[in-house]
């Protein structure tokens, strides 16, 4: 009876609670503001600065580019600057085939590396997810363990393994599998090895979390309905782990495109990747505006397709509901 009365007319208690509810909603919003502020200060503002530099010209000065779009001459000066804006650096990027090739090679190398990482990482994640629950935390720990050592040192270590007189060649020569040392270092193969090794945890972790969540009785049900284990994997396990596959691939692909350390240390001088090109422009040529333009284009190349992809995914999810 009291329930009916309470719903029929707003009770005094509910009315009194309204300001508290508004305050609570404000606090909830506040919590969201923190990460947005973080992104504003450490991503958006630096990006705007980089974009601004990309519109200027190199100069022998400190910093090494001509000032562009600033308020030194007041607001009118700023608008005068806007009218004089030119995208010469971007046109330059289209004129020299070097940049286009570097972008394309980077995307191809990152793509192949991502697929290789997926092929190596999936069985690892699968094995972990199906391991007895008691040893799963240990396995997880082992995947994260390499992070305890510096990334640079780990990539350096690969030079020792891959060089002609390195550990790998010595081992293969000693076992008699090869008679001539393999040339791996300073080739694209070395880059693939380096990227797969370095980014494997970023692939394994999201895959593991999606595989571990999966109800194993689904696989049993598929087998019960006459599907052999390999079929059950491709029809049930793999489709259900796709969110993990996508997350893992993005986490590997995006940093791999701009990767600089691995191609520089393992790929030798003749490999062409956009990260290295950017580094050369910035440190060797001291051409800040062009390297900024390279960075802006790289960001667009990566974010625009991913944004479309995520939008499509969100739409698909919406339809599924």
């Amino acid at each position, binding site marked *: 009876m009291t329930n009916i009365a309470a719903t029929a007319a707003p009770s005094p208690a509910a009315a009194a609670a309204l300001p508290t509810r508004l305050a609570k909603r404000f606090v909830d919003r506040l919590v969201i503001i923190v990460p947005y502020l973080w992104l504003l200060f450490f991503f958006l503002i630096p990006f705007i600065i980089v974009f601004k530099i990309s519109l200027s010209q190199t100069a022998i000065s400190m910093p090494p580019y001509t000032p562009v779009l600033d308020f030194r001459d007041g607001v009118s000066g700023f608008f005068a600057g806007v009218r004089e804006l030119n995208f010469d650096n971007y046109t330059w990027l289209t004129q020299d085939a070097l940049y286009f090739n570097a972008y394309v090679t980077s995307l191809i190398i990152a793509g192949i590396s991502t697929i290789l990482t997926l092929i190596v990482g999936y069985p690892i994640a699968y094995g972990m997810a199906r391991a007895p629950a008691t040893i799963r935390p240990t396995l997880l720990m082992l995947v994260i363990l390499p992070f305890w050592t510096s990334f640079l040192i780990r990539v350096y270590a690969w030079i020792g393994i891959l060089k002609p007189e390195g550990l790998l060649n010595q081992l293969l020569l000693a076992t008699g599998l090869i008679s001539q040392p393999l040339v791996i270092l300073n080739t694209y193969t070395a880059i693939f090895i380096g990227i797969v090794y370095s980014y494997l945890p970023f692939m394994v972790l999201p895959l593991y979390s999606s595989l571990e969540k999966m*109800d194993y*009785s*689904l696989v*049993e*049900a*598929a*087998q*019960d*309905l*006459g*599907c*052999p*284990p390999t*079929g059950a994997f491709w*029809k*049930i396990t793999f*489709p*259900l782990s796709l969110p993990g596959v996508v997350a893992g691939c993005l986490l590997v692909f995006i940093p791999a495109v701009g990767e600089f350390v691995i191609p520089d240390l393992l790929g030798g001088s003749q490999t062409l990747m956009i990260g290295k090109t950017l580094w050369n422009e910035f440190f060797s040529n001291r051409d800040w505006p062009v390297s900024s333009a390279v960075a802006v284009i790289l960001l667009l190349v990566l974010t625009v397709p991913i944004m479309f992809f995520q939008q499509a995914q969100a739409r698909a999810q919406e339809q*599924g*509901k």
Partner: protein
Amino acid sequence: MKSLGSIRRDFAPWNDPSAKPYIQFDKVTKKFGDFTAVNNLSLTIFEREFFALLGASGCGKSTLLRMLAGFEEPSAGRILLDGQDLRGIPPYKRPVNMMFQSYALFPHMTVEKNIAFGLKQEGMPGSDIDKRVAEMLKLVKLEQFAKRKPHQLSGGQRQRVALARSVAKRPKVLLLDEPLGALDKKLREETQFELMDLQQELGLTFVVVTHDQEEAMTMADRIAIMDKGEVMQVATPAEIYEAPTSRFVAHFVGNVNMFEGRVAERTADTTRITGATGAQIVVDNGGAATAGSDIVFAIRPEKIKVSSKKPADAVNALEGEVYDVAYLGDMTVYHIKLDDGQMVRASAMNASRVTEDPLTWNDRAWVSFRPDAGVVLTR
């Protein structure tokens, strides 16, 4: 032994010595490390039977079902299906299908794709698949939900999809693991009858695992009561209830009063029992009890009559005091504390609106029962 009342269909291959068993567990043992889940168990199930495995959790009933489906191999012993030894046959080649407790519906497929899954594996032509799927959807009354995904369905609808999927291939045997466990009480009762109708209609052999005795009693032709990896008794629901063969079964199914005692005298058709606390009980059916042996006399509450005066013609009548009365509407449950200290539970149907012989707390009362009302248990 007198035949126990049964209202079931005229179907009792287990009483026919010439009937061929369909599923046979032959001295099956299953160990997980040191733990013995199923211990040297033998069991026979007949074609078209609705067979229930009933027991508390951890009694080995699910392991038994999983061995039949092929997800576990027995550590020792054989399982035969229609004369064929199932050892080494993987689950995807066994002519049995299972309905999982969690339903295990494929979340990324629509209802019709879920139902068609097993048929596609069989290599059935597409037009036949469509026909069979439509037929199954009609059977479980989900025609308008064909294009939905499992998460867009209610619990009861999901249960019916799982059922349709598991019978779509027309398996020789359908295994059901707690099929109604996730449904609420009212839906569960309706679905019990639907399952029974479906089994009749399709003429399949059903093996159902459950911990709910009411569910097993309602649906099954025969029930196997399991405890610690062993079968305690296999019998029809009526036999399980009226003629349990052990204290465990008597206790496990329904309510029961147990009198500890010793057989004082044993003749051809009467057994006189002296209760541990002095009560004298005479029964018709002494079972395997021999004179002088320690036994338990078990009697169901509804077989006991409670009255304020000693009934003149009663063979067994014990005096005590009303300790508790619980009025449940359709019946009244009395707890009588006998003068020797034993507590007796008796229930009386409230067949009329006014009780002629009202009893209340602390009244003197007599409990009486017929010589054939209970059973003598030796183990």
